[in-house]
């Protein structure tokens, strides 16, 4: 490849403005082509072509660049090398492994380190499942590699190739660059298949067709799983001002979601948060596989002080990696924290291009970019005939915590689950600070069959009933603010008492408690059912004219508040005992009043 590059027509830098540069003599360059810039060979991408002038966004710091230096084409768009070796690793916004960069430069990330990608020296044990004469279609599997302890990497024919197998290597140890299979296509041309292939990040990988999303992504978080479920293959947004716990919520989802693969993008966020992930994730055990959750995780980090153009690319890098694993038939969940930083990167580049701004300085194409991104989620049948899905959960950081700003508004149009984080809940240290009045899930209806079959027949109606109670509580609270709680009739005060249990004992979930950080669905349901039971028994008492103060047994209430800690996740007998206690207490009480 190096030889080819020397022969190509090179551009000449004519203007430099931060991460955006212009070059002359660029007629032979293609739109979206990847280029290297200047003597340091910084990596960039062509974003505008006009006559022989090209505009390039550069993914590295441009200080030190001079006009007159060369721009070298690479002949291909910004692409990723997709192969085994991505899991358990952390990459920058253009898929350069940060561990490798650290070997080159121990502390800081320098410019001009060139294009690095997944490890091409590492030997993998490949098992090949085809023989000469077999017909291989695009996207079909020709072998496997055990990529980590829990994930088998299925080697796929790239989506743009198909043909008849000519030769196959024996099973054994290979690097990602070794030729494993040779195929002959319909035009009688030979193609080599390796473990890895390249794919341009801005082109969605093809699939056979889209399915309906019928299974929820189980997250172990009560407010999400029961109240606002996310479907596998669905889209969700988590907007919230600073300090409301976006990153915390995203981390919880990355840790406990029942997806096969997690792609976590730290997009324009804090360096320490990524360090925390690297330190914490390997220690956490996935409840399903019994192995470290890092075994199924890919991390992309473009922290807020890394070059802004690479931030724009990091989202696409992440989704392309997600699609690669989806095509193997895995359920992938992708967390993007935060999509607002990506939108701001678009705005910054747009400003430097002197484009006409629309709302708040954002470019007019912001909504279409957001739509394109979220539409790469979905539950699909792969080209190879398997089921795969990508769930996208994007954090949004609205300026001033105001949800009417352009990024939140436009994201809301294209996602189906909206988990609104609330500052006042966060101030009261109610975590996760998901506001149950503002949030919604568009998947409730299509997932209700699943919940009825797999959790309990009344699961969804129970959820609706309890949510209604919370709505009522909200209205009553307004009244309480005006007249005080003592004036309310007893049945309304009973609603307030039960709502308090739901808030403190159910919706609040402690991420630092070993039991409460992840709660299985059975317990989530049983807890809510028990609260309903208490509510109904209390209402019987109200009919007998028993005042709320009598119905509220301090001991029972405190058991409800603490049941998330005291009742183990794998032994729910404590909930039945709690119901017995309620019965005992109320029977005595009711007798007193009946007489």
């Amino acid at each position: 490849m190096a030889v080819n590059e020397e022969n190509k027509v090179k551009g000449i830098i004519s203007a430099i403005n931060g991460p955006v540069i212009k070059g002359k003599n660029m007629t032979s360059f293609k739109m979206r082509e990847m280029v290297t810039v200047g003597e340091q060979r910084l990596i960039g991408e062509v974003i505008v072509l006009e006559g022989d002038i090209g505009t390039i966004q550069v993914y590295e710091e441009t200080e030190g660049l001079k006009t007159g230096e060369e721009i070298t084409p690479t002949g291909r768009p910004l692409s990723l090398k997709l192969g085994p070796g991505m899991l358990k690793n952390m990459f920058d916004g253009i898929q350069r492994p940060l561990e490798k960069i650290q070997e080159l430069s121990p502390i800081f990330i320098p410019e001009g380190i060139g294009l690095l990608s997944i490890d091409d020296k590492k030997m993998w044990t490949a098992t090949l499942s085809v023989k000469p004469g077999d017909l291989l279609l695009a996207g079909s599997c020709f072998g496997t590699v055990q990529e980590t302890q829990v994930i088998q990497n299925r080697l796929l024919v790239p989506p743009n190739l198909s043909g008849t197998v000519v030769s196959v290597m024996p099973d054994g140890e290979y690097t990602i660059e070794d030729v494993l299979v040779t195929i002959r296509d319909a035009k009688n041309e030979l193609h080599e298949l390796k473990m890895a292939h390249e794919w341009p990040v801005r082109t969605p990988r093809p699939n056979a067709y889209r399915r309906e999303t019928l299974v929820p992504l189980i997250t172990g978080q009560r407010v999400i799983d029961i109240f606002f479920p996310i479907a596998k293959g669905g889209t969700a947004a988590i907007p919230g001002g600073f300090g409301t716990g976006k990153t915390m919520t995203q981390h919880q989802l990355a840790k406990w979601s029942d997806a096969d693969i997690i792609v976590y993008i730290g997009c324009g966020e804090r360096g320490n948060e990524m360090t925390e992930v690297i330190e914490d994730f390997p220690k956490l055990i996935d409840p399903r596989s019994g192995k470290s959750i890092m075994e199924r995780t890919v991390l992309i980090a473009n922290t807020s002080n890394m070059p802004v153009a690479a931030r724009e690319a990091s989202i696409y890098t992440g989704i392309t990696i997600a699609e690669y694993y989806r095509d193997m038939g895995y359920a992938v969940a992708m967390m993007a924290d935060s999509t607002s930083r990506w939108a701001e990167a678009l705005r910054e580049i747009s400003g430097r291009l002197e484009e006409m701004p629309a709302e708040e300085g954002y470019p007019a194409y912001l909504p279409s970019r957001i739509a394109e991104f979220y539409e790469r989620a979905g539950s699909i049948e792969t080209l190879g005939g398997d089921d795969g899905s990508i769930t996208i959960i994007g954090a949004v950081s609205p300026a001033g915590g105001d949800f009417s700003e352009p990024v939140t508004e436009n994201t809301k149009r294209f996602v189906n689950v909206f988990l609104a984080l609330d500052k006042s809940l966060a101030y009261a240290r109610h975590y996760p600070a998901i506001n149950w009045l503002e949030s919604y899930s568009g998947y409730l209806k299509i997932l209700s069959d699943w919940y009825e079959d797999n959790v309990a027949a009344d699961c969804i109606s129970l959820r609706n009933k309890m949510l209604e109670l919370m709505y009522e509580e909200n209205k009553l609270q307004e009244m309480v603010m005006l007249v005080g709680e003592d004036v309310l009739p007893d049945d309304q005060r009973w609603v307030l008492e039960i709502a308090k249990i739901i808030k403190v004992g159910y919706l609040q979930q402690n991420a630092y408690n070993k039991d409460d950080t992840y709660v299985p669905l059975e317990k989530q349901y049983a807890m809510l059912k028990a609260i309903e039971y208490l509510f109904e028994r209390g209402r019987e008492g109200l009919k007998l004219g028993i005042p709320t103060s009598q119905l509220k047994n301090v001991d029972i209430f405190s058991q409800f508040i603490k049941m998330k800690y005291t009742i183990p996740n794998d032994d729910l007998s404590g909930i039945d005992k709690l119901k017995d206690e309620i019965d005992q207490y109320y029977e005595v009480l009711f007798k007193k009043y009946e007489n």
Partner: protein
Amino acid sequence: MKKEYLQIDKVVGPLIQISDVDDVFYGEVVDIVEISTGNIKKGKVIKIEEKNVIIQVFQNTAGLSAGSSIIKFTGESFNLPMSLDLQGRIFNGIGEPIDNGSDIFSLVEANINGRPINPMSREYPRNFIQTGISSIDTLATLIRGQKLPIFSGNGLPHNELAAQIVRQARLGDNVNEEFGVVFAAIGVKHDDEKFFRKSFDEANVMDRVVMFVNYADDPIAERITTPRCALTAAEYLAFEKHMHILVVMTDITSYCEALREISSAREEVPSRKGYPGYMYSDLASLYERAGMLKDQVGSITFLPILTMPNDDITHPIPDLTGYITEGQIVLGRDLFQRSIYPPVAILPSLSRLMKDGIGEGFTRGDHAEVANQLFASYSKVQEVRDLSQIIGEEDLSPTDKKYMAFGRAFEAEFLNQGFDEGRNIIESLDLGWQLLSLLPLTELDRLSPENIDKYFPKKA
């Protein structure tokens, strides 16, 4: 031999434009020599368009005219010489000594823009720093290597609070590890700078302080480089000389205003309130320089101070800052008006790194629960106060009355503390228990039975 240029095409605010220039690089430093006086001003290339170059001048551009100055391209980036001799010295915003001392000579030079730290090389900060201030230690704990801004308002005692933290902060138990302070004053009043200098003297740390000062009447372009010079010095001392550095920076609001002024002179498309769209990335390039490195002694703890215009926390400056920093300490005007010092408004205050730096082995096992309970109870106090405004305190329920009493005691005894008073974390936590005991046990749902047994004050 670098070329020199005589012709200036255009001067707009701090920017000058010259044409027909060859062989300069983006970010190159230029010297602008006034022919008549020989005075040298410094500037930096911020845009190159064909042969036209835009230079941002760090000093006042008044008096510049076509033909009166020589523009020399130095062929270098903006580097500062780095040495341990920086300590005890005072520099201006572009790193020139202003204390009548000698220039710093060193073979080690560092680019003031710094480079991003590889997240793989970072160490996640976990070491608690005791500031001796109850509200901060208990409820928004400062961690070594953290960036924790103070969100203040005009006239609030943020300078006093920062000075008190510098004076009282105990940077860990290991006495062999050296500590130092880097102080950057950006667009501050002469009085404020004097105040800090005096308090460093009183704290007996002056020989460990590196000061970079840009006064309110200094040129605004220098405000852009002031924090970068300071952080470069901090990085050198922390990561090369393995010291624990506390960086105090005031006032970020002046910095952002300078950024806006230059952006407008460059005719850039503005985003919210006229601030440039890249302000988030720009602020991040400062704040993210705080941290610690793996397997290495040394840290940068960053305490920037900003005054919220009109006390508005949703203003772009505090808003963008809050998204980058690891929490915030918010000062409240109503507490200040009730003579409570330090007026830390605890509900919007937060330390994100606190969760891993407190508890058994760091502070005390009950810390997290006490903090949580204080937050929850004080948050309830606000609701009860609203209610009492309407129906009067007399008509509150007995529990609510207890909340009112708790609220008053909490503010008077816990938040309020002397400018010279240091309380260690154990004292602060015990005080917290004392105050919580004003409330009925049934209201304390964040405390575990074990801790209640152990710490709840027994009624005599």
